């Protein structure tokens, strides 16, 4: 081919421009492409800057297209080159440094700039926007040198910046003009919940405040508000909004308003010049979110390649975001007026909120907070102006609709358009996900993440991706989810346990070999699980495999992010003595413990012990291990009880300590927590424990399956017993039944729901023979337990292999 390629020039090396290029490259290779970018980096994900700020991602992590990508696609990239003018007659672009480039087609994707308010004093050092890597670096530097920061603007960007700075250890106040945070995306109810959540995370707020002046010396030192109040701030992030970067249009005689004006085919007023993303203004709208930008890119790519397209008709602005771990969603009209019928539900305990607005019975807007599983359906309803009916109501509000729930969610996914964007962070459409599932045989969200990138950034779209997966796989989805304890084997726990018993398998290696694992030595999920199942099946005989234990159980201490450990000595029933406290204090001082914390289970946690000091700390404490690191009985929490309390009807401290001594050190499928209360006032909170015991005048009531953690669940009442012996036996039977039938890592809250309370009741209470057998089994297992700290202290080889760092010096060979 001798014909020269058409020249396509892109001004702007950000998400909008490069995403459009990616779409173009999928359609044709007929262009010779040149990209100009002002920043010295390849295209990176601006949305994820806050992750860089908080340290959970590095700059490299957020690069979307690395240097190689440009090379592989034959794209000439000029970084740190700002294009200042376009000569639309000569069809060339001219940069700041005088470089020129000719184009046949030109794409403007210059994005936007931080809106800097002209507040007196804002030219002082220490005042920045939050828009690019350079801003991010300035913030990282500031956090090292200064203590107090103010973020002006309580929108998404401001909150992300604030969260990042709090994570860096700064004292951060968000200053917001309005009384509600993110008032353009949330109603005041959701906004208040968000504020409460962020306050819990350490961010402070100054609401309804307008900054009159920034005072200081060469550097900003404080803000003065219009009401005269002041706020100390040695660092100020201005995050009041963004302004489309349209300078290039103005300088080149291209029509602009707020942004560069484009028609439905993203054409500007100049021939062969297009604009896309935040710099463009379409039908009076400038978008600041990523989804519209991808939608525009889609249309533009087709337009530039000469493929027929219906054109871009604007985007329905819906917002689905994750802010500091909280999911929020809004769509359509979400501030209620007199014309609206409001459906809402607020759950202060689960911290969720849901609101749907109807106008003439049509769904016109919605807000979700905390749980955004319904966002895909709602977005569709709002877009299509769906009429509210009983079925939709039931699905959304969790009542009435009966069995329709799951079905209709899949139905919403089914009706979703192929090119609808599911993952807004990475611009992944429904079609890309569906194709990946079909073509590559994917069966899990993790695989979809690895293959398409969807869910990989904020994770907000995970529920929708799950729904797509279940829709594409149909019945196959349930199968792949239900069976196989991990990717190494298709076998379930039950099948593995049966296999071990039938074939007399003795080690994890043997199990994985004989039961034909795909992965000979298993993974971090199945190895500990199989080791546990072997331990329960062969009490006393199974040689526990340290190498198949997760770090905390291998080291008998909880690892912290810096590689130090925590030590929790046993305190039976949460009761200690002055002598023991003295010893704990002495050891803490001697080994320079970083913090001593009272745990949720009424114990003392010595935080920040060096790995090599662990055995010495155990030796000098000379107390049993508190098992705070183990899938085992952690703690028995108690109230004061009848020994001292005027309300106490039972000796909760005594019985709690007795139960803890009896059942400690035993392996369970997951951590196991108990509580004993002396009366129904329930001060030790039995309702959130694996086994909770509540004393009353004539005996005890036993509750099981409670959980206060990730999936909160109130315990179910199992039975009432009269004597302490009955109490111990029933608990022993429940524990052993759970040990034998629980899936590894399955807490009793899930186990109770899976097995059913009736089944557990019949096996551990009703059927006396079965109960005796369970008690006998656990008694046998208990004869083999020993204190793990003492065991390590008596075994010099293990102690040195696991805990010592051998110092060596190099020698020249």
């Amino acid at each position, binding site marked *: 081919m001798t014909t020269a390629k058409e020249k396509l020039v892109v001004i702007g090396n950000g998400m909008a421009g490069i995403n459009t290029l990616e779409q173009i490259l999928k359609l044709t290779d007929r262009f010779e492409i040149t990209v100009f970018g002002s920043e010295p980096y390849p295209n990176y994900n601006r949305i994820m800057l806050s992750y860089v700020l908080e340290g959970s991602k590095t700059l490299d992590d957020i690069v979307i297209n690395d240097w190689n990508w440009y090379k592989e696609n034959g794209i000439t990239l000029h970084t740190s080159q700002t294009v200042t003018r376009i000569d639309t007659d000569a069809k060339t672009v001219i940069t700041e440094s005088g470089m020129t480039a000719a184009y046949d087609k030109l794409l403007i994707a210059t994005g936007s700039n931080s809106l800097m308010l002209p507040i007196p004093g804002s030219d002082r050092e220490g005042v920045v926007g939050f828009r690019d890597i350079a801003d991010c670096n300035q913030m990282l530097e500031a956090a090292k040198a200064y203590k107090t920061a103010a973020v002006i603007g309580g929108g998404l960007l401001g909150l992300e910046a604030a969260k990042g700075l709090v994570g860096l250890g700064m004292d951060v106040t968000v200053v917001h003009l309005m009384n509600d945070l993110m008032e353009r995306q949330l109603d005041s109810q959701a906004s208040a919940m968000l504020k409460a959540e962020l306050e819990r995370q350490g961010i402070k707020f100054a609401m309804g405040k307008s900054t009159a002046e920034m005072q200081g010396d060469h550097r900003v030192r404080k803000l003065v508000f219009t009401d005269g109040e002041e706020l100390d701030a040695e660092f100020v992030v201005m995050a009041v909004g963004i302004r489309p970067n349209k300078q290039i249009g103005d300088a080149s005689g291209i029509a602009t308003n707020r942004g560069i004006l484009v028609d439905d085919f993203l054409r500007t007023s100049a021939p062969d010049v297009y604009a896309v993303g935040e710099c463009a203004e379409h039908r009076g709208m400038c978008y600041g979110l990523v989804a519209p930008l991808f939608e525009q890119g889609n249309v533009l790519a087709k337009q530039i390649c000469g493929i027929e397209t219906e054109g871009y008709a604007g985007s329905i602005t819906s917002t689905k975001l994750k802010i500091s771990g909280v999911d929020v969603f809004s769509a359509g009209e979400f501030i209620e007026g007199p014309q609206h019928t409001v459906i809402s539900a607020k759950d202060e305990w689960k911290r969720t909120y849901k609101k749907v607005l109807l106008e003439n019975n049509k769904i016109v807007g919605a807000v979700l907070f905390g749980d955004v599983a319904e966002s895909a359906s709602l977005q569709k309803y709002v877009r299509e102006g769906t009429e509210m009916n009983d079925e939709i109501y039931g699905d959304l509000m969790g009542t009435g609709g009966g069995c329709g729930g799951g079905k209709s969610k899949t139905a919403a996914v089914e009706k979703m358009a192929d090119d609808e964007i599911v993952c807004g962070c990475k611009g992944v459409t429904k079609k890309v996900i569906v194709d990946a599932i079909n073509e590559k045989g994917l069966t899990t969200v993790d695989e979809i993440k690895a293959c398409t990138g969807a869910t990989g950034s904020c994770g907000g779209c995970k529920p929708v991706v799950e729904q797509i997966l279940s829709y594409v796989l149909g019945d196959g989805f349930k199968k792949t989810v239900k069976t196989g304890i991990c990717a190494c084997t298709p076998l379930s726990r039950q099948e593995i346990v049966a296999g071990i018993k039938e074939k007399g398998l003795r080690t994890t290696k043997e199990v994985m070999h004989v039961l034909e694992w795909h992965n000979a030595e298993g993974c971090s999920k199945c190895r500990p699980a199989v080791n546990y199942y072997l331990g329960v099946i062969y009490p006393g005989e199974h040689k526990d495999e340290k190498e198949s234990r997760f770090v905390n159980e291998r080291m008998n201490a909880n690892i912290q992010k810096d590689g130090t450990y925590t030590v929790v000595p046993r305190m039976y029933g949460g009761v200690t003595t002055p002598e023991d406290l003295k010893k704990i204090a002495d050891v803490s001082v001697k080994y320079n413990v970083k913090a001593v914390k009272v745990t949720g289970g009424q114990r003392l946690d010595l935080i920040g012990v060096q790995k090599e000091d662990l055995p010495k700390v155990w030796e000098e404490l000379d107390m049993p291990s508190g098992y705070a690191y183990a899938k085992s009985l952690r703690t028995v929490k108690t109230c004061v009880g009848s020994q001292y309390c005027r309300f106490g009807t039972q000796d909760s401290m005594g019985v709690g300590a007795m139960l803890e001594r009896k059942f400690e050190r035993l392996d369970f499928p997951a951590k196991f927590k108990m509580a004993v209360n002396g009366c129904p006032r329930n001060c030790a909170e039995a309702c959130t424990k694996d086994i909770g015991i509540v004393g009353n005048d004539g005996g005890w009531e036993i509750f099981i399956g409670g959980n206060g953690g990730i999936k909160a669940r109130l315990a179910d009442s199992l039975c009432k017993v009269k004597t302490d012996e009955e109490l111990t036996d029933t608990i022993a039977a429940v524990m052993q039944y759970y040990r034998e039938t629980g899936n590894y890592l399955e807490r009793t809250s899930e186990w109770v729901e899976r097995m059913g309370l009736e089944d557990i009741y019949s096996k551990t209470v009703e059927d006396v023979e079965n109960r005796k057998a369970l008690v006998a089994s656990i008694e046998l297992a208990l004869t083999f337990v020993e204190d793990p700290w003492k065991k390590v202290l008596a075994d010099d080889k293990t102690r040195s*292999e696991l805990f010592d760092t*051998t110092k060596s010096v190099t020698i020249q060979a």
Partner: protein
Amino acid sequence: MTQEWNTATAVTVALDTLDNFPSRMGRVFLVDETEIAVFRTSDDEVYAIENRNPHPKGGPLAEAIVSGHYIYDPLYDWKIDLKTGLVQEPDQGQVRTFPIKVVEQQVILFTK
């Protein structure tokens, strides 16, 4: 991606005898200023990597679960190839690896 080194100019350090390395577990050595985690795999090969988690939050690696010539890091459960130090998908990163071999039961590390 095996690292090449010239034994004539190599800087070596004899760490310990092989029987002092527990199978499928890591041991930590401080060689000059660098912490090195040494793993003995089930086929009695040894691998040496820097004892520094490639996750942005850092932390150690020696306490990982070893499976074949891969480890699952103890803090974030990232899967890492002991041969190349490469973090497996969907996570990304790389740990520094060091040449190491067993000569007559003696485990020898090469640092250059």
